[in-house]
């Protein structure tokens, strides 16, 4: 063995011990994340699409593929989960988000260390009836969520939206303003005004004055709102999809059991994918196109890293 080699081995051992000691010290002091590679380097998918399972089970697979709820919810944080509770209709009608899905999401938030998980919506029918008949209140409470009301103007505060075309200011629910994490859980449906209703349209339930959107340019306002605060995560319930005569009181023959679920941080991408499941090109839905033009997200699914899971 040459002297060089001996020196190299000694060097190697010394450096290893040193690195090891430093690492041990660092881990005792509070974190070794600096040593791991960046999230982006590991390449979690931009969008996860699951099919052929129950909503809550598809969600479990999807969130795992996204890197786990721990990527979005840290210990001690407050989370607001915003499903579609707009209508006083039961889960079998496809008018509101599947309640079992909402329950599973709340459970995962708590498991990831959330301090408090809130569930609410600014409903279209009487809020008490919506919360009861949709069964979302019951299921969310079973998971330990605080189900909060959204029917009183008191809960909303005015904010200004920079860069908005039409929706320059609006009153937003305090839970959206104050919570650490914002999880958007829409259900995919046909909509007789907007075309389809998915993640962006679901955000109409966090503002007080929905009539403003309808009166001043529905599609423009839907896309404008995303300039204010985008959800940290969007989970689209595409299990029982209303294909026509939506968004409520469609005929039973208008519903299709698509049995799928989509997850993404990109609200435009998830809407685009949902549009395709619905059977329409995303560019044809004005608010998706406008949001893409406002650089809120990516409409072109071919550019995205999509994980597809069939159960």
């Amino acid at each position, binding site marked *: 063995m040459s002297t060089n080699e001996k020196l190299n081995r000694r060097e190697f051992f010394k450096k290893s011990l040193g690195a090891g000691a430093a690492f041990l010290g660092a881990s005792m002091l509070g974190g070794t994340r600096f040593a791991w590679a960046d999230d982006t380097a590991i390449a979690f998918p931009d969008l996860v*699409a699951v*099919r*052929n399972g129950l909503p809550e089970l598809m969600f479990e697979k999807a969130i795992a593929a996204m890197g786990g709820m721990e990527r979005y919810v840290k210990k001690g944080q407050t989370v607001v989960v915003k499903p579609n509770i707009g209508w*006083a209709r039961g889960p079998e009608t496809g008018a509101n988000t599947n309640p079992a899905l909402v329950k599973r999401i709340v459970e995962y938030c708590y498991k990831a260390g959330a301090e408090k998980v809130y569930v609410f919506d600014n409903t*279209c*029918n*009487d809020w*008490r*009836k919506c919360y009861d008949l949709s069964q979302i209140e019951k299921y969310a409470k079973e998971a330990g969520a*605080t*189900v*909060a*009301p959204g*029917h*009183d103007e*008191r809960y909303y505060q005015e904010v200004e939206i920079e860069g908005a075309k039409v929706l320059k200011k609006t009153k937003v629910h305090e839970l959206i303003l104050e919570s650490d994490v914002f999880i958007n859980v829409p259900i995919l449906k*046909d*909509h*007789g*005004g*907007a*075309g389809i209703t998915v993640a962006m349209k679901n955000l109409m339930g966090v503002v007080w004055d929905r*009539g*403003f959107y*309808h*009166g*001043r*340019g*529905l*599609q*423009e306002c839907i896309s404008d709102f995303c300039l204010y605060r985008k959800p940290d995560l969007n989970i689209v319930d595409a299990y029982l999809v209303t*294909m*026509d*005569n939506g*968004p*409520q*009181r469609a*005929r039973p023959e*208008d519903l*299709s*059991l*698509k*049995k*799928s679920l989509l997850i993404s941080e990109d609200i435009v991408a998830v809407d685009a*994918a949902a549009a*395709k*499941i619905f*059977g329409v090109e995303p560019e*044809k839905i*004005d608010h998706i196109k406008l949001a893409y033009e406002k650089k809120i997200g990516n409409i072109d*699914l071919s550019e995205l890293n*999509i994980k*597809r899971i069939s159960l």
Partner: protein
Amino acid sequence: MKLADLLLSFQFTPSFLKFITLSPGVLAIGFLIVVILTALFGRIYCAALCPLGILQDIIFRLSRKLRKKQRPQYQKPYPKIQFAVFAVTLISAVLGSFALLNTLDPYSFFGRIASNLFEPVLIFANNLVIPLLEKFEIYAHSTLTIHHISASVLIFNLLALFILAAMVVLRGRLYCNTLCPVGTILSVFAKHSLIKIQIDNPKCTSCKKCERICRAGCIDIAERKVDSGRCVACFDCIDICPTKAVEYKFSSAGPAAQSGDPRRRRFLRYALYGTGVLTLASIPLRKKTRRKLLTGRSQPVMPPGATDIDHFTATCTACHLCVSNCPTNVIRPAIAEYGLAGLLQPTLNFDNSYCDYDCNICTQLCPTGALQPLMLEAKQLTQIGTCKLVPKKCIVYRTCEDCGACIEVCPTHAVYAIERNGIYFPKTNPDICIGCGFCEKVCPARPRAITVEGSAIQIAAQAPYSNQAPVRKQDAQPTLEEFPF
């Protein structure tokens, strides 16, 4: 709710109206039971069952506590006023205008005060407490909306309460013995009831304690007489008599009272003829306002179960039970909508509310049968009005921007979407519209592009989707066999 129903069935006027209009359901004989009880025991209805009586007693007690100096004594009766008021009320009711009956009927009177004055105060108090609870994350109760009350309704009821309170403070149960139609009817039976409050002459020491405590002012110690016609059977006099001279016992036969001065009788006769003539003269006037109502610019929307406008306005006493129980607060008291004859009768106002598709509460609890009870499925096909869309006022037709507010909310899809060049235009199908008003409520255009015109006769609508426009999209892939991206 159960106790309230029970008490409601004994309210005189509602039960009577339900009986004479042969409303379906339980045979409404509550008023007959009240009459029988009165003929046996005196006007116990007035002290124990009548809500207006109880309200007056509360005011009476309060006024006594605050004005100790006042010492009420025997009051003389006002039979002329009592008779005249009753005659006009009866004649106008028989001829078709219930305005006076509705205004004076004690149950309806109380109902309006409770629904338009007390309830907002209670809700206001509730809304003060709720934010405190919410600070502790208690969401078990929530804030309630104070339903809109128009200024005229508020003033009317405040004035009525003020006048009532003034009468109570000054003269006790004066209302019950002059204006109240139920009081007048029952006084006829109570005058000769089987069991009465009477003063036993030997035991009485003329201390006048009973005369002073009598809330109806009907005890005259000078004559040692209790006027049974005006006595409301509260029994305070019996309790307070130190010698137990005031007794509640089978009536002893006494000489029938003379009706008095023949000149007085003649005057009463002419007064009666006069009111009769006046009321008859008002018939053509009433017909004119009714015609203007039906052919005028719009027919008011009546709550479901009203059947038709003649039945409704002739049977409703404007008690506002439906107004205060409506969960969406869409039912409001009318001022001019039904003409003067229908003052304060309920009508639907869609400015910021709508009739919930899954609700039939008003039809179930109307005590007079003005709103016939409807099962939910029947109510969902009852056309209380029809939608009318004016395209030149509609934002979508004017600006080619999507809106969809009316399409979104219609429960029967009488308002539906037609797609043209990527824009969703609303179209209406009035045959399947039930007039719930949700479209009118949410329309963002001002003036509104879509409104509901009331139906004078509530017919059955056609079933939802029964003449549906063709399906816009065929679902090429009802199940997802593979991801489309």
